[in-house]
């Protein structure tokens, strides 16, 4: 008879299947930051998409609030190995924001207030995979979690979901971001455990 039976862990079996390799489940919401928390009043917030030809598309906070928003419940996976399941967000899909943007770019470089950047393929921002999120768990997104608005790209490690997002450059060639310059994976799929370059 095994010393530890499956029964002891039975109530977690569903969660286990939702945990990518190397991750553990957490119920709090850890805050990781590369610098001081930017405090941006919504009336001073804006979001800019700049295409590879230099064409700029800009939305104010008021503009963002007039766009159709979605409520999404997603799992988060941080490269520091914690995962948080069933997190509830409200935000505007990048499909909406990029609908009228003409581009042949393959890559995106995301910029945040405070200087943080992260890169990912443009196709990973489309088809219902990414949002500019401004509510978490029914409340306005707090500054420590990236408010007034952050990028949410939950199918990639959480460092790609840039807090305090202020814009996206659409690029013809990939340009590594803040952590991607320092050995982290250019794509960051948690299910393939793409933590570091070469994974």
């Amino acid at each position: 008879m095994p010393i530890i039976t499956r029964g002891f862990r039975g109530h977690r079996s569903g969660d286990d299947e939702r945990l990518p390799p190397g991750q553990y489940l957490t119920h709090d919401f850890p805050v990781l930051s590369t610098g001081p928390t930017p405090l941006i009043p919504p009336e001073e917030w804006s979001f800019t998409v700049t295409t590879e030809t230099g064409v700029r598309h800009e939305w104010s906070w008021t503009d963002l609030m007039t766009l159709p928003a979605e409520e999404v419940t997603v799992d988060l996976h941080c490269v520091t190995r914690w995962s948080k399941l069933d997190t509830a967000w409200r935000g505007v899909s990048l499909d909406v924001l990029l609908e009228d943007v003409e581009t042949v770019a393959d890559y995106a470089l995301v910029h945040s207030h405070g200087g943080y950047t992260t890169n990912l393929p443009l196709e990973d921002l489309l088809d219902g995979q990414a949002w500019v999120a401004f509510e978490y768990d029914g409340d306005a997104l707090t500054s420590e979690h990236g408010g007034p608005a952050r990028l949410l790209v939950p199918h990639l490690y959480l460092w790609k979901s840039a807090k305090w997002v202020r814009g996206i450059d659409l690029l013809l060639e990939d340009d590594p971001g803040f952590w991607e310059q320092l050995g982290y994976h250019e794509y960051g799929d948690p299910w393939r455990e793409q933590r570091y370059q070469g994974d």
Partner: protein
Amino acid sequence: MTATYDGNMLAGPLSDVFAVEVTTATACCGGCGRNSTVAELAVYGPGPGLVARCPGCDDVLLRVTRTADSIWLDLAGMASLRLPAAGG
């Protein structure tokens, strides 16, 4: 959030990089020109990596990560890093 640590946090991670005690080194900020000992820097982290900022202007002076087989070090934000020389 305020800085997670001061620059003494860097002593361990950088001990594999520098042959001397780095926390007493003097970092000159490439942004504002302020000289600070590494111990005085405002350090955020530890994950995904450590980020050390100038206590004067908050510019990033140093970043260090440790991946599966490498240590990655970025000092691009510094104008200079003055290290104590052995016997100096």
